[in-house]
């Protein structure tokens, strides 16, 4: 396997980590105003991700950095082409990022409510927009011969991609619900459980419809490169397993199944693209792939060595933090900080 393929896989891994970890962070933020009513309950919900959300977000930053380092043309085309959509995403990420810290700094209920809604919208917006962006990657955009996409925002807001945004939103939300399922106890915990059923049904309907649409509108599921169909089927099975485990009351397994849905869906997208990174709808020759978008072999070697050393270290210490904060929380837990 050459380094370009290796970095394609590493990029996939980073996006899997990002969507898996930030997925439940976003989901928790989206569920916050609905499952928690009193300030104590809301604090309990926020504190389930309190110690870890910041580290989780670095998966996105590192995925962006890795894209820049390994496939600079993808980074350039994607970020400049999806400009306005990404600015909206940044708005969400900015207000969400400070909300956790600012919220606890004053007792005033109006102050806290304001930041609760900031957390909600700051989680909803990136979840939705990542869905829109990824769906556009699957569908392809009008990339011209100079590797640039000049179309602006409107063509990105096509029905397929907007629907993809809703699917991401639904998957992240049920993932967040399952996370709250293993992290909470007491009244809020019960409320989350009653929400989960409806959300799961919605997620199944949306995801199945999206798979059919993907089959019809893109070549992701019958890509001649790597097969997107197998991970797609496995993702669907995991989504059904999520419901089964939920019904059996096995919360740990529900969370694992939800995480698998997200990881397998991400794998589906990337295998369906391989070896392409961004599909041009104008001319296949304009598509960006792991060779024409890549950095030089020397740079790929350098970052491969760095990744080989640091990715395992990061996984080890992040895993350790989840172990430290493994206890369930409720509105009257003494260890609420945010």
């Amino acid at each position, binding site marked *: 396997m050459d380094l370009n393929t290796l970095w394609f896989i590493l990029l996939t891994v980073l996006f899997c980590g990002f969507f898996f970890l930030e997925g439940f962070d976003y989901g928790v933020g989206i569920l916050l105003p609905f499952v928690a009513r009193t300030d104590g309950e809301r604090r309990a919900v926020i504190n389930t991700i309190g*110690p870890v959300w910041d580290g989780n977000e670095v998966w996105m*930053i590192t995925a962006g*950095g*890795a894209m820049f380092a390994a496939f600079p043309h993808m980074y350039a085309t994607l970020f400049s082409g999806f*400009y306005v959509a990404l600015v909206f995403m940044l708005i969400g990420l900015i207000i969400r990022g400070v909300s956790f810290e600012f919220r*606890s700094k004053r007792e005033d209920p109006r102050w806290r409510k304001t930041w609760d809604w900031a957390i909600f919208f700051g989680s909803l917006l990136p979840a939705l927009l990542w869905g829109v962006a990824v769906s556009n990657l699957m569908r392809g955009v009008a990339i011209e011969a100079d590797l640039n996409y000049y179309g602006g925002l409107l063509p990105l807001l096509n029905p397929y991609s907007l629907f993809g945004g809703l699917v991401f939103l639904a998957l992240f939300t049920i993932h967040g619900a399952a996370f709250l399922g293993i992290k909470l106890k007491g009244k809020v915990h019960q409320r989350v459980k009653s929400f989960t059923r409806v959300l799961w049904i919605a997620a199944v309907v949306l995801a199945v419809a999206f798979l059919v649409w993907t089959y019809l509108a893109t070549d992701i599921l019958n890509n001649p490169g790597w097969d997107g169909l197998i991970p797609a089927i496995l993702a669907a099975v995991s989504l059904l397993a999520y419901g089964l485990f939920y019904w059996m009351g096995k919360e740990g397994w529900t969370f694992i199944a939800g995480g698998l849905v997200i990881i397998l869906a991400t794998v589906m997208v990337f295998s369906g693209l391989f070896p392409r990174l961004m599909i041009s709808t104008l001319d296949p020759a304009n598509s960006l792939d792991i060779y024409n978008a890549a950095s030089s072999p020397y740079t790929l070697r350098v970052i491969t060595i760095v990744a080989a050393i640091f990715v395992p270290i990061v996984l080890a210490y992040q895993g350790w933090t989840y172990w430290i904060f493994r206890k369930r929380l409720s509105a009257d837990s003494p260890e609420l*900080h945010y």
Partner: protein
Amino acid sequence: MDPVILSRWQFAITTIFHFFFVPVTLGLSIFLAILETKYVTSGEEIYKRMTKFWGKIFLINFAIGVVTGIVQEFHFGLNWSEYARFMGDIFGAPLAIEGLMAFFLESTFIGVWIFGWDKLSKKAHAGVMWLVAIGSNLSALWILVANSFMQNPVGYAIRNGRAEMTDFWALLGNPNVWHQFPHVITAGIAIGGFLIMAFSAWHLLQNKAETRDFFTRSFRRASTYALIGALLVGLIGHAQGQFLAKSQPLKVAAMEGHWETEQPASFSVIAIIDQENMENTWEIKIPKFLSLMLFNDLTTGFPGLRELQEEEIAKHGPGEYIPPVTISYWSSRTMIGIGLLMILVAALAVWWSQRGVIAERRWFLRILIPAGLLPTVASIAGWLVAETGRWPWIVHGLQKIEDAVSPTITPGSIIFSMTTFLVLYTILGVVGVALMIKYGTSEPALAEEKGE
């Protein structure tokens, strides 16, 4: 409106806003780690309270630093995609390494630090703060490795229409890095020290018996810290100036408003700059002093902007190569002037607090409150010197700013994003500063009760 101008404004606004908060976290992270270590070794409860109290100021800055940092990372692709294509092979690697080595470290362990007071042993918890401090300062290293290439390109070859890395160790060993990085770190130390002195001074002026010990101790430690930072940032800055005289003479000549080649070179103390006619209409000069500052002697000459402009034309073809001299000149005077003032103020603060009479110097304490912002102003001025002095290049000698902008973005979309960012930054800035004042001026015991 020109997308290049708009993109430059947007980048400048984001960078300056980002750099208003980040250096505070660089300096305070180390300060907190030292305080908490003192708590572990001495076992005195007051050091834990001090760590938690100043930790709140740190966390507010940290949050704003993180979110504006994400905007920074996106910007290279959003507005500067041609730069990303030309430089990705070199610039992307340090950025990815920054994520893997530094961001993960600081962001993961800051969560452990905030939430881990009762879950970890004292020693482990202090160790976690050291990891945060190392992560924060390592992130400065890697972004400066990337930035230094833009100032002083090394270890590369131009191939396939772009700059490609040929020697990673040359990139890391870039002499520009090893001037700029310590300069930024020590600036952060001065910034953190002055900020804590300012809040401590406010509390000492309230004259409350129950908090006097707490803030006298905080003040004493912060003043020493600030003096170390102020002295080192000045000394390193001086060495950096001497290095830049060789690597980027145009930048130095612009900083000094130095139009004519002189041997020995005189130093302009104050001047009115006329960039159009390439001269200073009025100025006060000290003969031979620029030679002394840049070369440690009274004889070596230094080329003026006019001559350097001709050299650049011979090298790179016709064009304008002189950076905006007024900005460079006044930014550098602001930076150096405040830098010298900082040394004086910090030295007095150390002197009086070591003699135990600081609470009696009420006029001085009053001065220290606004002085808390001085190093931040100096550090922003320093960035203006570094980055406007690069003009017209985005990567010195390799790519011009006008060739680096994304061809796909419209003025309308940049105006939209810039307005949005400005509104958001204003809200964040106001809320962040208000919260810092609220917590910095609250009673430590009270702050403790609410917990963090």
